[in-house]
Each structure stands twice: as C-alpha cells, then as structure tokens.
C-alpha cells in the first residue's frame, strides 16, 4: 500500500486555522511530527484492507437503526443553562449569549 505523504507544519497551520486554534511556530512543528505518527498508525489499516473487504465507517455491521417519532421530555432549563458561559434572560425567554460573530480574524 502507498505511504501517506508526511504532514508539514503548513498543513497543521491550515488545520489549526480552520479549527480556530492559535499555535506557535514551535507548536506547529511539534504537532506536525505527532500527528504524522498518528497518521502512520492509522495507515496500517491499509495493509489489512483487501479488495474483498468493504470499507466501513462504523464498528457495528448494522443498517436502518431507526427511532419512532415520539416526543420525550427535553432537558430542564436550569440544567441547560448551568452549562452556559453566558446567559441573557427576558421574562420567560432565556438565551445562550455568545460573543460578536463577525470581526474575528477571518
């Protein structure tokens, strides 16, 4: 099987940008190496993959696992907002409050 191309710090910088994570140059190099090891390990699966083995995306060999369309109680509001970093309330209405969306580095 072909070997995956080694991950460069440019690749890691791109992924970090998409994931909105700030990394230093030193960290970019460090993660390029560490993520490369992970990719190599996962690539070993290719050695076992023969044409007669169907690629899989799930551990269970099942299909059509469906739920009935029946409403069950949602979470109590107190539990929902116990997790919220910031909340705004107006009468019976409560929202998650999030920082301004535009204006962050694009």
């Amino acid at each position, binding site marked *: 099987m072909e070997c995956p191309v080694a991950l460069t710090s440019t690749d890691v910088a791109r992924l970090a940008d998409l994931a909105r994570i700030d990394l230093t140059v030193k960290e970019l190099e460090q993660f390029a190496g560490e993520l490369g090891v992970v990719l190599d390990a996962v690539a070993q699966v290719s050695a076992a993959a023969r044409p007669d083995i169907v690629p899989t995306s*799930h551990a269970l060999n099942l299909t059509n*696992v*469906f739920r009935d369309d029946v409403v069950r109680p949602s*979470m109590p*509001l107190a539990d929902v907002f116990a997790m919220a970093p910031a909340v705004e309330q107006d009468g019976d209405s409560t929202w*998650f*409050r999030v920082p301004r969306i*535009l204006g962050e580095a694009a």
Partner: protein
Amino acid sequence: MSRDELLEFDEVVAAFDPVIGLEVHVELATLTKMFCACSTRFGAAPNSQVCPVCLGLPGSLPQVNGQAVESSIRIGLALGCSIATWCRFSRKNYFYPDMTKNYQVSQYDEPLCYDGSVEVDVDGELITVPIERAHMEEDAGKSVHVGSLTGRIEGAEYSLMDYNRGGVPLVEIVTKPVLGTGAGAPAVARAYVATLRDIVRALGVSDVRMEQGSLRCDANVSLMAKGTTTLGTRTETKNLNSLKSIEKAVRYEMCRQGAILAAGGRIKQETRHWHEDGSYTAAGRSKEEAEDYRYFPEPDLVPVAPSREWVEALRATIPAPPRERLAALREQWGFAEPEMRDVAAADAVDLVAATIAAGAAPQAARKWWMSELMRRANAAGLGLADLAITPAAVAQVQGLIDEGRLNDKVAREVIDAVLAGEGTPREIVDARGLAVILDTSALQAAVDAQIAGHPDVAERIRAGKTQAVGVLIGAVMKQLGGQADAASVRALILATLEG
C-alpha cells in the same frame, strides 16, 4: 441601498444566456428532531426543546428518526429521484454559534435521493427542471444579533442563541444547472419553487411556508456569453423569503453580473443576501470553501439502506403531481383555464375542493373564495386559508341561497358574521332573523301595497314597459327590509299585474 451598476434586462438576455440553480431546504413536519426525541413545536420558549444530543454534549449519541427518513424518501420519489440502496450521513465541520457541536450532520457524496426532475408550468409552457439530489440533514439554531441598529450581524455587539430549531429534520433539494431559459430565467426559478412547494405540500410532510422558514431557497445565478458553452462564475443569493423575491433576486443578479461582464470585469464567486426593503443583493461574509468543511462519514450513525419493498410501498403513497391533479379537477369542475389558474395562484384549490365536497356547486364555490372571501383576506392581510371560515360554512351559505332563504346581499352579511365568530351560517340566519321572507301571503301583501302606492308605475308595466318593474321591486324590498328574493318579487309583481 444598492450601489451596483445594472445592465438593462433586455440587453443582458441579448448578450448572455443565464444559468440558474436552486437549493431548497424543506423543514419536515415530524413531531421530533432528526437525531433526538426533542419536540419540533414552533414557537416554544427559547432553548426549552434541547437535550444532550442536539446540544452536542460529550457522550451523547444520535438516533435517526425513521419518520424523517420515510418523508425524505417520499419527497425523492415525488421528484422522480432514484433512491439510494445504501447511504450514510456525514459530518460537515464548521465553526459558527448556530451549531453547538461545531458540525452539522448532513449527507455528502451519498445522498438518499438523486437524479430526478420536476415538470414546471411557466405561463402555460412546460419546462423540465433536472434534480441533482435530495438529501437529509439537520437544521441549525436561530440567532438574534444585539447592539446593531438594524438587527443585522454587522455591527452587533453580541448574539443570543436559541437551539430549539437545532436538529430539526431538513431535506435539501438541489437542482442541476438549468440552462436555456433566457429571459424566462426569473419566472422559471419562481415557478420551480412554487411547484416544489405544491408537491411537498401534497405529500403532507411539511408546512412548506416560506414566511415561517419551513421552506427556504437559495438561488445560484451565472451568465454565459452567447455562443459559448463554458459556465460562468456563479453567485449564491440567500434570504429569499417569498416567491416574488426569488424572481426579483434572479433578475437583479442577471442585471448586476451583466453590467460587470459587459464592462470586461469578472464575477466574484460569493454568497449574496437579498435585501427585500430595497430589492437588491449584497455580498455576505466570505464563506469557507466547500473543501474546508472536511466532510467525513458520521461515525455515530449506521448507514441507511432502504429496502426496495419499502421504497415501492412508499411509491404507492405518492399522489399525482399537482399539475395533473389540477388538470383533472379543472375538467371535473368545468372551470375555464384562467379560472383554474387564478384558483391555483391563490392557493385556493383545496378550499374550493372542500367547499364542493360539502355540497356547493363548483362555480359557486369558486366565486365565494375568489371574490368575497379574497377581498376580505386581502383587507386583513391574510391568506384565504387563514380566514376564520371553513369550506363547510361557505357551502352552507350557498345552500341557504339555493334554498331561497338568503339573497346575495344578506349572504354577504352572514359571511361577515361567520368571520366575526358568531357561529355557523344557519345559526346566524336564525339568531338574526335574516332569512328571506318565503311566506307567500306576506310577499303578496307587500306587492299589493306597493302596486297600490305606485298606480302610475303599475300602469306603465301593464302597457308593456316591463323595465319599470325595477321601481316596484325596489319598493317591495325596502318594505321587507331587504329580506326577500328579488327574482321571486319580480315574478310575483308581473303575475299580479297580469292577473
């Protein structure tokens, strides 16, 4: 306000061939969300319909709503699509506060439904719109932007999130590029979405109300120089909240792009937003490119593999296309083409059908909905279906007229009373004593009194000037407070004078 240079529409279609593509999101009317048992009820208090699954809390696991899969397959079948024998959900990764998970569960390269087509009637001409795919996904939450003057995201200090809508099942229906529509492109875009809405509504799987967001449309537009076959760079316009705005936005983009291309410029591939107030499009925030979504198969869900038996059983539930149904109903009701077109355009087909089913003659049912009730709906800014009157009540009013118990004028009064919530037409007629006078002796007495009171008029009628009878009819009606049938009064006057 728009600052765009615009080329005249006629000049655009003389120099370019427009290519349109439409992406429509339909919110399914299931009771629960796509992957959890939270209610989908509209209008609940913010964040009162959320759980660990739709909030994306660690350790929670999604479960597919079988009803949503069934509704999606039925939509695909109604659009003439093939149904996948095996397909998976995928994660679409992006960072935006409308999704707490930082990914949306959607379908990527394995849509549930693919390769269909829709026949669209554009002013009597049939156009085939090819369907690329219809796939399942989950809706995102809703945000309110605070601190900006306009309520828009630009200039907002912060935003408030309501995740009740997050996880509600959606079907996204994507057309292939539609070529060759020329100057008709804006009308085709509008007619396609109207047809799609009618098809989905007939299936009963969604409210498909654009103003409430249960049907949302994005329009892709590009221009191809005449004589070339290379597709131009396209823009995607969002925020199209009505059929009218779809038509106007496609036209606007054609004129805007035409001006840029005619001046030797290049179109920037971007997302634009329709501004209904000024009728123009404006560039939105720059969006991540498709490959940046890093789709991968959703590892928490097993594949969906609809059996052919299931698909065929669902195919048997698909009603005839609305266009065929309309043609059959037109035939059955004896409506002229323009009459039927007006009824369909007013979304009154089901109302008229129900009124006929409740006993009214087809033309009478049509007239009530398309004139009296239409006028009242327009005055109140409502749709016909939102009026506080049922088809059965309309049929009952017509029945009272047919029985001779109401005349047209009093019937309109009864309609107003029904709309005011005073009861059924029969109850109102009885309570208000509105029925026309059927008692022949009472009618005869009034006729005799008015003939005696207008000897000169009576003489003229006897002499053959029957048009003078109008004076006597008016006098009799006035004496009876309008509660008589004018035709009967006329007949009775003439008979009395001849006798």
